């Protein structure tokens, strides 16, 4: 069964990760950043070895997002549609594992990711079952 694990972050979180001073956000030093990298590599390596990893991707900073919507029936593009404090999808994993509980266990491990004090305080990780077929969408 396939699940998607979703990780969120705001533009401010991205800024803090690049080492910038952001008011109200912990400062990520080079050692913190390196520790996070090691943790993520381990995490992905374990999932690859267990055969559960389908795909994982990180998204570039929210500032690069484009939103397309209709305005009077005409497609209109908004560059950088998010406020800088707004939490948006920052990365995801797709795992193929035996149960929702196993997927939850995998996702929970992400909260152990090292970082400067306070970094994990407001972190959330979501897990959502991926529909295998149109029927499962119960439309």
């Amino acid at each position: 069964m396939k699940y998607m694990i979703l990780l969120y972050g705001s533009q401010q979180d991205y800024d803090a990760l690049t080492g910038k001073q952001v008011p109200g956000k912990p400062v990520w030093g080079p050692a913190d950043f390196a520790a996070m990298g090691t943790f993520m590599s381990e995490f992905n390596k374990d999932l690859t070895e267990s055969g559960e990893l389908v795909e994982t991707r990180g998204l570039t900073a929210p500032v690069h997002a484009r939103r397309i919507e209709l305005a009077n029936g005409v497609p209109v593009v908004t560059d950088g549609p998010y406020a800088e404090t707004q939490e948006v999808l920052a990365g995801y994993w797709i795992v193929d594992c035996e149960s929702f509980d196993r997927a939850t266990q995998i996702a929970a491990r992400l909260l152990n990711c090292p970082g400067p004090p306070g970094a994990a305080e407001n972190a959330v990780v979501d897990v959502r079952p991926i529909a295998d077929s149109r029927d499962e969408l119960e439309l």
Partner: protein
Amino acid sequence: MAQTGAEDLLRRLAPQVLGAVVRRYGHFDTAEDAVQEALLAAAVQWPSDSVPDDPRAWLIKVASRRLTDLLRSEQARQRREDTVFRWTLPEQWVAPAADRPADAGDDTLILLFLCCHPALSPASQIALTLRAVGGLTTAEIARAFLVPEATMTRRISRAKQTIKASGVPFSMPAASERAARLGAVLHVLYLVFNEGYASTSGPDLHRGELSAEAIRLARVVHRLLPGDGEVAGLLALMLLTDARRPARTGPDGGLVPMAEQDRSRWDAGAIAEGVALITGALPHGPTGPYQLQAAIAAIHDEAPSAEATDWAQIVALYELLLRVSDNPVVALNHAVAVAMAQGARAGLDLLAGLEAEERIAGDHRFHAVRGHLLEMAGDRAGALRCYQAAARRATSLPQQRYLQARAARLAGDE
């Protein structure tokens, strides 16, 4: 604009890096600033640190980071001003995608098409092309065109605003407009070359850096479109014209007309390359104005002296050129060639026909040519008047000095 190894590399990579960043993230206007800053960082860091293993990737990385920063502050400002930047998706964006993946060469061409967009004035097209494709700094472009840097900064940022507002996608122009758009690109390179070769203003006769840059960019386009005869023709024309540069000014910095130039000082390598290019291009497909001008330049360059030039052949080529281009300067040059082939009177008769042509009758070149032909015909008083009229109208100091000298020589003989 000195050509050191690292600088050469940076200038060559500039359009590839900008292309890659715009293709990935959009925002041509801001990305262009970000790439300039990355080039600057490289110019400072590489000589002291050493050039990275993959310079292109390094520049793309640094430029992308810088773009993120610039967008951050831009969007924060827009939000403070409560204006979120929105733009209408142009109609053509809904069209199917190109049928093959693009490469770095395509990016350079696309950038050229973008910078020479018809929505921009020629002055803006030139400035933007030199910066975004040539990798020159605003200060360098301003110096080359003898305008204050602030003026050039405004010109470039206005040009980028126009591109942004026009919403042109970062892709090749549609096949139906490709020929016309390529024509605009070649015209811009031609103008850059001419600006360098025959400065329209200021004390220096040629600002050779601009000619060298135009030749460099024409080489890039020729490499990307090797089968296009007009691209080959333009490159050949530039090489064959620039080959005469060493003999074109005297020791005093004054202008030396072609007939009096020391032909042993012409650049034989450039002539050989230009002749080979035009010889290769001519037999293939439609012969456009650049090829015809290059063919004329080749005849001049291969002639041992002005007298031994195949003027009849040059007259024939000018007549072909007159058929494809409505340019009074071509008509003027045709008159000179006719005078050389058939005598001064025949040339003067053609000039009389041009007198009603407003675009050229007020130009210093018209009066200078008439003076020259009158002198050939033995009418020294008439020639003197024409040289003086030409000198009054010339804008470049060396041209004025040359014309005054011709006039003074005749006046002294009186």
